[in-house]
């Protein structure tokens, strides 16, 4: 028994890697759905903020992340874009990170095609802005001084989708999807100063950093990682990427918990056996 425990505690890490792969892959391959998802107040607030916008208002989505955090943030952006299109809300997409440009363009184009939306009329892709501090301070004065043209070089003011928009205050809801500290800048340089509705979506690791803004009502709500996306999807009754991914996340989390408990029990048993020997 003692030898078995010692061997198990020194188990080859490749076996743990294999277990991790299986825990993540099996739910994806067999499309296992997990029961019991409870929706948090924060997600409900973001949902209500978008849902309460009247037809013809605008949602601005800022894709401030890169492919490394795409699995956590893309699904929530995807479901919100679909929600906006479903409600005939105009969508503007932009990025403060260079790799976020391709993600934004891919997402908005795919959703627009699926939901029969027209470029320039129902949505527009604004492109990349390297200097986010400058852009955020300028948004409140003149939106077009930051983005005079869209990503295709078309004069932005000539597009029907921009009708009625002069500054960021004319936008119904702004959503910042970020895995870094862009939300701090959005709050400090723009939303607090110009007073528009700001929401955010972030990674699980970054969630505690963003929560103070929810409690102080500086943002309308926060979507936390893949779970936040799955909660939003359940509110919209849409079975999307987040819902599908939650099974893998759940199995992965259970594996970590089981392995920690198992390892600690074995250490405890080892200690007990040593004491008995004495």
């Amino acid at each position, binding site marked *: 028994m003692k030898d078995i425990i010692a061997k198990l505690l020194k188990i080859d890490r490749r076996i743990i890697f294999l*277990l991790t792969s299986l825990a993540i892959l099996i739910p994806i391959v067999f499309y296992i759905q997990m029961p*019991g998802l409870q929706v948090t107040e924060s997600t409900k607030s973001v949902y209500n903020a978008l849902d309460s916008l009247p037809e013809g208002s605008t949602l601005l989505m800022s894709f401030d992340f890169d492919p490394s955090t795409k699995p956590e943030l893309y699904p929530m952006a995807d479901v919100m874009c679909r929600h906006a299109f479903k409600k005939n809300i105009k969508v503007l997409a932009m990025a403060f990170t260079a*790799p976020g440009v391709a993600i934004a363009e891919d997402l908005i184009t795919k959703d627009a095609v699926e939901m029969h939306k027209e470029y320039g009329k129902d949505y527009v892709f604004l492109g990349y802005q390297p200097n986010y501090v400058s852009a955020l301070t300028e948004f409140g004065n003149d939106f077009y001084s930051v983005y005079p043209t869209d990503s295709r070089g078309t004069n932005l003011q000539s597009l029907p989708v921009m009708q009625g928009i002069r500054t960021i205050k004319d936008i119904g809801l702004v959503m910042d999807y970020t895995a870094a500290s862009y939300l701090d800048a959005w709050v400090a340089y723009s939303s607090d100063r110009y007073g528009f509705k700001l929401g955010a979506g972030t990674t699980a690791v970054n969630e*505690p950093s963003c*929560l103070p803004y929810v409690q102080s009502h500086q943002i309308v709500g926060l979507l936390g990682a893949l779970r936040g996306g799955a909660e939003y999807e359940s509110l919209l009754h849409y079975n999307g990427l987040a819902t599908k991914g939650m099974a893998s996340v759940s199995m992965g989390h259970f594996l970590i918990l089981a392995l920690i408990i198992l*390892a600690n029990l074995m250490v405890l048993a080892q200690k007990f056996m040593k004491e008995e020997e004495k």
Partner: protein
Amino acid sequence: MNIFKKTLPLAICFVIGVLSFLQYYCPHHLSDEFADVLNDHMNIIYFFAYMLGLISLSMANWGTIKRKADGWGYSVLLFVGMAIGIISGIAAKGEFIANNHMTAYGWMYTYIYSPLQGTMFAILAFYLVSCSYRAFRVKSKEAGLLFLTAGLFILGRIPPGQWLWSQIFGTACGGISGITEWILNCPTLAARRAIMVGISLGSIATSVKIVVGIERQYLGGTD
């Protein structure tokens, strides 16, 4: 010469610093116009910062190749990658899709850059699981508390954990989801706020020191 090396930069820093501070709180069109000018200048400075970074990176790697130092092949790869990236980016005018076809630039992003970044991040999950098994030992009260919180969090953040908890303990205190929300919104947030306030006070103090010329390290030299 001291005027150009010290006095003038300090004066510019003081004037711009004070005006930028006032501009933030002044809702006047002159203030907005000043912000426009400031933002244009910031963009120009950003360009020089990027160029400086590019030149510095190139010089460091060129030196590695010339000396045939360890790993010089990676430096060659860096130049090859940089050249391909810049040429394809200029040729595609920064577009990922042109005439309904993916450009070389877009192809590289979609099939090289994006999977590589995803893979790098995904590898962390494997090491995390392995480390949890090997290193997370409940040997003290603090470790026990950490384990308890982590366990509650894991259960509270995933649907089967929430379901399992509600089956065993019911939905008192909002269920496991309510408990994790409380942990996040009370103790975690209190600690986070303290850190944020500390960082902010430190930033304000450093900014004031730079604006009034007490902190001068950005000028170079030792004083």
